[in-house]
């Protein structure tokens, strides 16, 4: 476990200045003519998901309750949005809250990692539905996309069926950090010519087999896996080479820093949905020490990524989600830990289609229950897609049946939609 408080004075100053400049740019963008904004409309929309795996504590992040029974040792600090306070463990993020909004009234009614994750990803409490990333890839990925649509940078994790009934090309592709994925390079014994002609033969064989009918979803999925493999092989360069020293200084040399740098590269090079997982928030013991370390790493790194997206103008077409499978219990256990808590917790959103600087929902004084504007994974799911300009009340059309994109019993959080 390494500590990285990463708050050297000079860095901080530079970041502040960078932020001031980009803030000004955003102001200008707000005054553009209709023609220009129409062009911006047509720009590809993207999603950046930062997943704080294990369940980040809402009390140590977006919904601090200092000085209350369960508040813990940390203070709340003011942010760039007047009147909005977040935990002092997020000083860099605090300065950028005018780009983000907080949802404070989430109640999933589950305390299970598995069920919480699926609810947050599928927008459904159960059943087999595609993840946010797969749905977004399906509706946002251009036909000629240079990369697979849904890329997940993570240091570990299980294989999920993220695309459910959607085509496998919208399924999540896992990347084990900034290294060349396994088997990406053609074997030396195979010449370029041989690779092309045998691949063409394979295509013919597979077309014939698909042509005889049968389960199209199976054969399509199989064929699409080779197309995705080819796209990745063509962009080997994205995984090679060391990031610049300057970038590493800003993002941090730890795995999360490098993973976020890869996420930026992927977004800049045509990635549609990029998810980065930051592991290790399941703090049943030593909640406060672990959050100090974990959020110390998250805070600055995430802000550098946010700044870069903002500076390049990509932020306004990129939906940014910072989320978990649940939060953590207000009650502090005997090991100074906080346990699983889906009952009253928060996430942060920003970018494409999201009103910035807002707080929606609230929890009671001690954070033991939602007191205002209760929402769950279903409402959030609709909100993401409405923010992306996708009608989440419409249906996926599959061969022979239709399935509603979002849970028909839930609605988007209108207050958050720009």
């Amino acid at each position, binding site marked *: 476990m390494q500590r990285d408080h990463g708050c050297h004075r000079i860095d901080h100053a530079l970041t502040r200045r960078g932020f001031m400049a980009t803030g000004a740019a955003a102001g200008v963008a707000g005054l553009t003519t209709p023609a220009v904004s129409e062009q911006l409309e047509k720009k590809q929309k993207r999603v950046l998901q930062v997943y704080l795996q294990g369940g980040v504590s809402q009390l140590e992040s977006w919904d601090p309750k200092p000085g209350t029974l369960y508040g813990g040792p940390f203070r709340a600090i003011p942010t760039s949005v007047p009147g909005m306070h977040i935990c002092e463990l997020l000083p860099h993020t605090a300065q950028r809250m005018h780009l983000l909004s907080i949802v404070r009234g989430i109640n999933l009614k*589950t305390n299970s990692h598995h*069920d919480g994750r699926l609810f947050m990803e599928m927008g459904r*409490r*159960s*059943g*087999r539905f595609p993840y946010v990333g797969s749905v977004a890839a399906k509706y946002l990925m251009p036909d000629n996309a240079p990369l*697979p649509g849904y890329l997940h940078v993570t240091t570990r994790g*299980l*294989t*999920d*069926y993220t*695309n459910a009934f959607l085509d*496998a090309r919208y*399924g999540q*592709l*896992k990347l084990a950090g900034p290294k060349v*994925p*396994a*088997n*990406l*390079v*053609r*074997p030396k*014994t*195979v010449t370029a010519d*041989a690779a092309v*002609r*045998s*691949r063409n*033969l*394979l295509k*013919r*064989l*597979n077309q014939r*087999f*698909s042509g*005889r*009918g*049968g*389960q199209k*979803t*199976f*054969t399509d*999925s*199989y*064929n*699409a*896996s*080779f197309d*995705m*493999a080819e*796209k*990745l*092989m063509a962009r080997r360069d994205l995984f090679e080479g060391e990031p610049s020293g300057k970038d590493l200084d800003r993002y941090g040399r730890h795995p999360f820093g490098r993973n976020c740098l890869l996420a930026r590269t992927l977004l800049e090079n045509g990635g549609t949905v990029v998810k980065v997982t930051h592991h290790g928030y399941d703090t049943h013991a030593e909640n406060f020490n672990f959050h100090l370390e974990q959020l110390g790493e998250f805070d600055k790194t995430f802000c550098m990524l946010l700044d870069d997206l903002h500076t390049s103008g990509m932020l306004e077409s990129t939906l940014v989600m910072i989320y978990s499978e649940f939060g953590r219990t207000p009650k502090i256990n005997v090991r100074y830990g906080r346990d699983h808590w889906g009952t009253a917790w928060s996430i942060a959103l920003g970018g494409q289609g999201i009103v910035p600087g807002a707080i929606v929902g609230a929890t009671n004084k001690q954070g033991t229950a939602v007191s205002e504007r209760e929402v769950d994974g279903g409402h959030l799911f609709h909100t993401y897609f409405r923010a992306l300009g996708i009608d989440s009340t419409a249906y996926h059309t599959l*061969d*022979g*049946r239709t399935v509603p994109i979002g849970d028909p019993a839930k609605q988007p959080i209108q207050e958050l939609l720009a």
Partner: protein
Amino acid sequence: MGVSFRSLIVAVAFAQVAAALPAAEKAKSLAPEIDRLIEAALPEFATHASSTCSDAEFLRRVTLDLTATIPSGEATRRFLADKRPSAEKRDEAIKQLLGSPAHARRMQYLLDWMLMERRTSENVASAGWQAYLRKAATENRSWDQLSREILVDGGADAKTRPRARFYLDREFDLTVVTRDVGRIFLGKDLECAQCHNHPVVEAYLQRHFHGLKAFLDRSYLFTDPKSKKKSLGEKAEGDVTFTSAFDDTKGKTDPRVLDLPEIPDPKGTSKQYVTKPGKTAVGVPKYSRRQQLGQAVTAKENRAFRLNIANRLWAAMMGRGLVEPLDLAHVANPPSHPKLLDLLGDRLHARGYDMRWLLGELARTRAYQRSSRPREESVDTARRHFAVGLLKPLSPEQYAWATMEATGFLEAVQNSTLAKLKSEADKKAKDKKANDKKKAAKDAGKAKKDAAGKKPEKSNTESSPSPAAVEAALSKAVDGHIKTFVTQFAADGGQSTSFSATAPQALFLVNGQLLREWLKPTKTNLTGRLAKLDDSAAIAEELYIVVLNRLPTASERSEVSEYLKKVTKRTDAVTELTWALLLSAEFRFNH
């Protein structure tokens, strides 16, 4: 009234006859009854139904389903050349495959996947578990016995420890093991969150969940302080209480399976121990609730047990469960063919849970032997009604074996394994002979009179290893490759029959070293043999027979011939052709 009364008498009489004559019942083939129910479930079934699959398709399909690999080129040729009526030779193939040692291998994989769902080995060595399953499959141990072994054993006894893997490699997390007993042995996910939107169903589920939990909640994970080995201990007290989802009242339950009666503890057993739980002693109560779980789950009153296994075996053969997903049987998700599921479950129960028998009966049905080429544009109806054969993605194990078989890599391993077994057997025999001689000499010295007229026991030097021993040794020899395929192709499929292919899998197939290694021409492997053939027709035939287990069509023959003309270096050409056929969807699926 009279009629119904008479039919009642007839029914009773019939039931008595059936009970009195289990042998007659046993001899009756199930396959025609299955087909009758399948075909009656859809009006104008024939207009939707695909024709019978070809002999070649059948042989590949049934070999994969019953022995986890594809037929050899030789077996394919022999089957296609067999001039007997198709039905006759198909029946014989089923019998022969079910009797082969490779069938135990298939069952081992199937049971492993079903029971452990690709969990990693934490507390129980995978090799011991696999050997346990293999032995059970070889003996065709009945599913109820196997279930009792797995549901009862706590792993304290080293001899039977592998049985406890179901519990121990779930770290005996009470919620997880309770849920998985429901899912895997009863086909019901009692934590099915979807149902929690429905208050009545939720109340049911809650009661069922806690009833099952009560069998297990006195058990606990015990870590031996010396060996650090984990096993299950059990206390002789403790009850399960829960808060009703209905009205917030507190409920208390004794162990019970679903809606069957609660099973109270016998009087005077509370706090009575064979071994009291302690820091160094694993608790053994006089009355074990976990022991009861094995009995109660497999009891004939518990219909869910028979329906679950019938559904799972059906899904393994047919590509889709009658209840799908396989672990979501409940009122809102009824079976597609309820009468059929009842029939399968009841007959399997009557046959003493003989899984091998049921697989054979399923393989004999028209439903199983239907072509996977759909008759109509929209295949949904046909698919739901098993009027068309379904594509089944090869399991990682089937995929590994089939690839090794097709490339000819397996034959090389087979030969070296056989040679090794033989030399080991020879060495053993030699040692034994030498020992016998020594012993005889010793004995002779000790008691010359006794030895007179007695010859030393003749050792059987000619004994060749049994087919089962060969099969076991072969499985062991290729185990590393099987694991590679499992790592690469196993997906968190849950208990469903779905398929999704990923880019890393495609990269493994396209660029991976392993496949390229197997494709490198040697003296005996497929590419080596193909490179030695001159005639393009012969190459096409051997290639298609060995990889896809069928003869090439005319256009496929000319495609091969064109390729051979275009790529003049023969070893390159045959390697590329084999590679393409191996990676084809036709190979990836059981069709």
